[in-house]
């Protein structure tokens, strides 16, 4: 019982690839004491997931421990044979994951999946599997423990019938079923809405106390880490560059990377030094309304005949040259709205007026020509580019479709566009997988501006990117707007980002606008209860709030 629960010493891990070994983890030294909550912060590709999966013996297949060891409760688990793992995995160390949808098997009921885990643990413990009814009772207990209502009904439901927050709670229940000593939480809130994030973090916090859990939580969101971890480690390119008390790291980061990371976190409580103070007065001669939606409505009808109103009577007008924010949680209808504005989805009723022209009735050729003036940037740059096309093909595609430009001219234009998005010309010969997330999003933006559109609709353009990259892309978007005289409709669930760049914002909930106005006013004096709730839960994980809170309690 003495000594740390988890002790990682000089741990080095290589993954063998086609091009030789890659050093994924370099000289990791980390200890976690009983009852402690440790945070690990790092960007995607920093090796944090590989590290915690190694602790659970489910690291990548072609990996090889070069040096060092991992000891759990005094036992060396670096090279544990598979059969010994069954006594540890899920029982003494368990894990919760990032995306609760993909981590639950879609074809089995919640109850089946949890009771199966319980059965596996009982088998591993060697005292026989208990009856179905006993396991059901225990499962319902667990579901109750993680704050899920009506466990008896949930037992027979499938993952797709649950919301994201509920699914994450189910995963937590599953992780708790073995009464673990150590719980590893791998980005447990990243895929969740802000209000739900705060609830899940609260739940983890309360479980730590109630069950005397030791927790390792990894995240790219330093705000989330700060809410639950006293101590944290910062990982960068496979190394731990800094570790210590979270409060110390936040207030006085030592490593250069940590400083960069902290600087890049958008702060919900700071008004942005917007370039947009004068909404492009000089550049556009007649600042007027560019895009207007009147009574926009979308109703989906399922095969069984039930109707779901995704977007209901939306009225909005976007002025030329402004950045118009749309904020809301998943399911609030913001993506449906964005796609309707471009007529990618047919509205059930309502009008869309672009540049004084009603485009809701347009079909065929006129609609196609209209599209060159309004372009879309998608959330996930990794899936928005065709992996079999070169970057040059991707950027040139709208030019080939919409214009009669010659091959040569397209080449020239593609190079010019790459220049605009600040990437080397030679990138046109590359393929998407050779690029980083931020670079890919720049390519997507280059593709969107290829036809000199007047309006860009950006659907969560930074959500799939790392924080430091997010800051770069946001800066870049603002520069670009000034340069090319663009108007943006900017959709996000991240309030800090919205505050940083949007002039005016609408807040959406369940398909309707609950509040709208100047972004600053929304943040300073929110009128609607939902806006207040959003800001409040956003603040909970925001850095500044935590910094002062933990500094105050020290």
């Amino acid at each position: 019982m003495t000594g740390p629960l988890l002790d990682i010493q000089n741990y080095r891990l290589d993954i063998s690839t086609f091009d030789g070994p890659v050093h994924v983890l370099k000289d990791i030294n980390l200890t976690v004491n009983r009852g402690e909550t440790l945070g690990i912060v790092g960007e995607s590709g920093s090796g944090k997931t590989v590290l915690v999966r190694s602790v659970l013996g489910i690291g990548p297949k072609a990996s090889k421990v070069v040096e060092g060891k991992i000891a759990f409760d005094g036992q060396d688990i670096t090279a544990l044979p598979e059969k010994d793992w069954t006594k540890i995995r899920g029982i003494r160390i368990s894990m919760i994951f990032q995306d609760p949808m993909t981590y639950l098997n879609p074809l089995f009921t919640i109850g089946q999946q949890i009771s199966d885990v319980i059965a596996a643990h009982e088998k591993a413990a060697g005292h026989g599997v208990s009856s179905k009814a006993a396991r059901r009772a225990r499962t319902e207990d667990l579901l109750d423990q993680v704050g899920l209502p009506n466990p008896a009904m949930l037992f027979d439901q499938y993952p797709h019938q649950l919301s994201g927050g509920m699914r994450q709670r189910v995963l937590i229940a599953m992780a708790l079923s073995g009464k673990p000593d150590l719980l590893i939480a791998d980005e447990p809130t990243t895929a969740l809405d802000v209000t739900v994030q705060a609830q899940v973090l609260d739940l983890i916090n309360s479980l730590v106390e109630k069950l005397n859990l030791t927790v390792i939580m990894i995240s790219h969101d330093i705000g989330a880490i700060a809410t639950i971890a006293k101590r944290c480690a910062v990982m960068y390119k496979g190394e731990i560059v800094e570790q210590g008390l979270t409060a110390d790291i936040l207030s006085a980061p030592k490593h250069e990377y940590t400083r960069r990371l902290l600087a890049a976190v958008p702060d919900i409580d700071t008004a942005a030094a917007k370039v947009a103070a004068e909404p492009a007065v000089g550049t556009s001669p007649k600042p007027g309304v560019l895009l207007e939606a009147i009574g926009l409505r979308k109703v989906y009808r399922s095969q069984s005949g039930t109707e779901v109103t995704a977007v209901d009577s939306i009225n909005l007008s976007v002025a030329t040259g402004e950045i118009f924010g749309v904020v809301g949680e998943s399911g609030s209808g913001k993506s449906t709205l964005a796609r309707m504005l471009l007529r990618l989805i047919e509205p059930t009723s309502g009008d869309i007026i672009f540049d004084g022209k009603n485009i809701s009735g347009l079909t065929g050729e006129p609609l196609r020509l209209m599209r060159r003036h309004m372009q879309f940037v998608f959330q996930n740059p990794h899936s928005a580019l065709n992996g079999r096309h070169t970057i040059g093909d991707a950027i040139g595609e709208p030019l080939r479709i919409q214009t009669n430009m010659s091959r040569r001219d397209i080449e020239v234009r593609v190079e010019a566009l790459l220049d605009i998005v600040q990437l080397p010309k030679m990138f046109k010969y590359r393929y998407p997988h050779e690029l980083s997330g931020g670079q890919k999003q720049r390519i997507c933006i280059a593709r969107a501006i290829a036809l000199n559109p007047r309006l860009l609709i950006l659907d969560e353009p930074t959500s799939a990117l790392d924080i430091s990259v997010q800051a770069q892309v946001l800066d870049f978007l603002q520069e670009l707007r000034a340069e090319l005289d663009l108007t943006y409709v900017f959709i996000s669930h991240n309030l800090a980002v919205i505050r940083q760049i949007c002039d005016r914002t609408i807040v959406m909930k369940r398909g309707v606008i609950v509040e709208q106005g100047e972004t600053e006013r929304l943040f300073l004096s929110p009128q609607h209860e939902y806006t207040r709730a959003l800001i409040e839960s956003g603040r909970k994980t925001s850095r500044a709030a935590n910094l002062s809170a933990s500094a105050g309690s020290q």
Partner: protein
Amino acid sequence: MLAFAFRKVLTLVGTMIGIAALTFVITNVAPGDPARLVAGPNATEDMVTTIRTEYGLDKSLPEQFVVYMGDLVTGDLGQSIVTTRPVLEEVLRYAPATLELVFVAMALGIIVGVPMGMLSAVYKDGPIDHATRIFSISGVALPAFWFGIILQLTFAVDLGWLPVSGRLPLVTRPPETVTGLLLVDSLLAGRLDTFWTSLRHIILPAIVLSFPCLASILRVNRAEMIEVLQSDYIVAARAHGIASFRIVAIYALKNALLPTLAMIGLRFGWMLGSTVLVETVFDWPGIGLYAVSSALSSDFKPVIGVTLVIGFFFIVANTLVDLAYAWIDPRLRSA
């Protein structure tokens, strides 16, 4: 789920009408005058005219179509010219033999193909994987008639382990017909020796018929398993301490089975069509052989009848696959 099943059955009826219409079009587009064909080369013009009236071929095409569809609804598939017996009666007599062959071949394909695909996926790029891949490529590549003859030569002629062809020896009295499937009927009649004899007869044709199907089931299942095994919920199941065997055989397989099922449905129809070749090679008295011998004697009604019956079984099989899909995947049920 009931509404889903009902919709599927409606689709089935619609598709059946489509197939019937299509066969009608094909027979009328095909060159040659059926009446003259029936009458034979030495018939006089009068005889041809009589036959034309008798078969209703003098009416306009829409009229003929109405009559044709009406006959189909009442189960009248016309008459065979060679045997002068109703086609329906003959098809029903030959169909069980074909179905028995297809069922056994399909069972073989699934029972061998699915686990081999799983093994191949679990030990990806290992020796087992390479072996099954070579096996499956040859399965797709070998022509059925050639493979059938090679099997006959080896196992029946050279080694003498199995009979060369046929369903039962002439001297064996077939069991009382209940289902028409000899394997089942002989068991029902309690005649184990007949069961054994018919099993020995069915082995070679079933292997030939199932080999390409087995290979494609294997390949689809392997590819799906590889993908599913990399998915997040499999990682999660491992992290929660579920035993590897259970993960592969239950958690992953159920997910991988969906595309495999689609392949099985398609292959079922393909097999029914392939019986034409296999039954000819093995002299298996099913509808394939019946269709071939009718076609060779320009007896076109039976060919249409067999086409319709094969189409019918194919659609039924695919409807069953659709229902199985919904049964496995809860997301389809609620949609």
